């Protein structure tokens, strides 16, 4: 099965880049994995995900009562309500996936989306906050276990 691991985020915006760091961590442990990073979202993901059987997305998230460093696994349907668009980033993964399917692209049959609860994604900085940084190795292990990588 052709699998892509996609780290999504902005690596100079403190915790925003945590998905990219985890994706690199996975690659360190297993150089044969196909890992890509992107700071784009939405429709640009279509170009990246087409042609794979399986896609593992690792991104950041901020929820109301979440604890920084916590890991969530989301289904595509969790992102589904975002049907209306207002910025160039305004196309969610689910819509990008649906567009790909309708246009006849070979889209991944299996998609896992991992989201790491973060603390700060509005301050420029190359390092994550301590709470999030400390969890990276553990989260990488969790994803390896979950996806049997």
């Amino acid at each position, binding site marked *: 099965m052709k699998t892509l691991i996609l780290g999504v985020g902005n*690596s100079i915006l403190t915790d925003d880049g945590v998905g990219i760091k985890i994706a690199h961590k996975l690659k360190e442990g297993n150089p044969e994995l196909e890992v890509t990073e992107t*700071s784009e979202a939405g429709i640009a993901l279509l170009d990246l995900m087409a042609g794979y059987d399986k896609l593992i997305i690792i991104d*950041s998230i901020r929820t*109301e009562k979440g604890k920084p460093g916590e890991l969530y696994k989301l289904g595509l349907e969790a992102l589904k309500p*975002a049907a209306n668009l207002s*910025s160039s980033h305004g196309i969610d993964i689910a819509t990008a996936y649906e567009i790909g399917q309708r*246009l006849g692209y070979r889209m991944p049959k299996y998609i896992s989306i991992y989201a790491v609860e973060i603390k700060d994604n509005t301050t420029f*900085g190359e390092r994550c906050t301590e709470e999030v940084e400390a969890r990276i190795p553990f989260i990488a292990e969790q994803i390896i276990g979950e996806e049997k990588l």
Partner: protein
Amino acid sequence: MKKITIDPITRLEGHGKIEIFLNDEGNCDRACLQIPELRGFEKFSEGRAAEEMPRITTMICGVCPTAHHMAATKALDDLWKVEPTTAAKKIRELMYNAFQAEDHILHFFFLGGPDFVVGPQAPAGERNILGVIAKAGMETGGKVIEMRKRMRNVLRIIGGKPVMPTCGLPGGVSKQISEDERKTIIEAGEYGVDFCKFALSLFDDIVLKNKEYVDLITGDVYSHRTYYMGLVDENNKVNFYDGQIRVVDPNGKEFAKFKVQNYLDHIREHVEPWTYVKFSYLKNVGWKGFVDGEESGVFRVAPLARLNASDGMATPLAQEAYDKMYETLGGKPVHSTLVFHWARLVEALYASERVLELAKDPEITSDDIVNLPTETPKEGIGVVEAPRGTLIHHYQTDDQGILTGVNLIVATQNNSAAINMSVEKAAKALIKKGEVPDGILNMIEMAFRAYDPCHACATHSLPGMMPLEVSVYDSGGSLVKKLVRD
């Protein structure tokens, strides 16, 4: 592992928030758009080598990295006082136009266009690219994707990567274009020109032949008589990559024309206590508040502003489209905010024609691609027209080229006063005697979507889109209604 569903409240944190304040009569008194603040870019940059900036600044914004890359590269030319070779300038301009064409088409078909193609009254869930495909046909969707793919390939060929280019150096570019690559770029340019002609004919059929849409476009709700700004070449034609900054007044008369190095003589930033956004205004007119007209220093940038600030387009087909637009709308300047969408298509055609012209230029494959800097750096300023408007990078360094000061004037900031005015005008037109119709959310969104604002672009956290919340307060400051679009 914890499983969650994202609810609208969690999506909203720090994102697009519009606050509307009513007066004693229950009519809109003022409205303001709040957006997240990103902190510390200047501090982050200081102490770094200036030549890192073309690569660092691409990461500020996932939407227009090529614009930041190019503005930064041009600031480095100026910092080291080195003139790029003519081939390097052409290569840069070619890449930049491929980026503009791709970005404009993305916006028209995915973001702004659905309002028209699917219809402003259609349910929110249908006003997206899938709705466009449903109405305009699957073939259209395929063409949009193919157009983007080809232009992104041009960016990859020249820039090294399709998203975050790495080719810009002070005095030139890092890689020449091969003959084989030239052929690919020519094909992309030809595809782009054909596609943009098709997009304009689609606009003609679906929008211009529908009286309801035309009335909406030209109606007063979305109109502001402001100043307009854009880069122009030596013939006052639109240029995205280089030239002088030209400003016209609300009557279309030239108000100022200057080199970017003198921007501080013309552009100032106004600060309001309720937002972190700085509002650009014309220094020589002055800040008079969120009002339009000749007495107010508020100006607009981006597609319609560029067309208004110029005397035309430098390529033949785009010039025809430019003439048609102004003839249809009764001459220059046009003040209707929704016409930004039409202007965006005219510009996409120009950008595609320019890609083709430059790809056919004999010098484009030259190996004379960089002049090495020899001067001691001190201060450098660069400008380009980002898809969303005039973008300025200003750097100061020590004599080793280590940054000591950074100031960026970004496109959305130049439009931010006008965006607030547009939101307020839509709210004033729609809210009467305390009655807040649900449709206001869409009408307000249409106002600011025309500007293609880049507010959510620097953070990428899921779900990767900008939610919107509108809160309405009565004259006593109590919340009377909250509308959420997630």
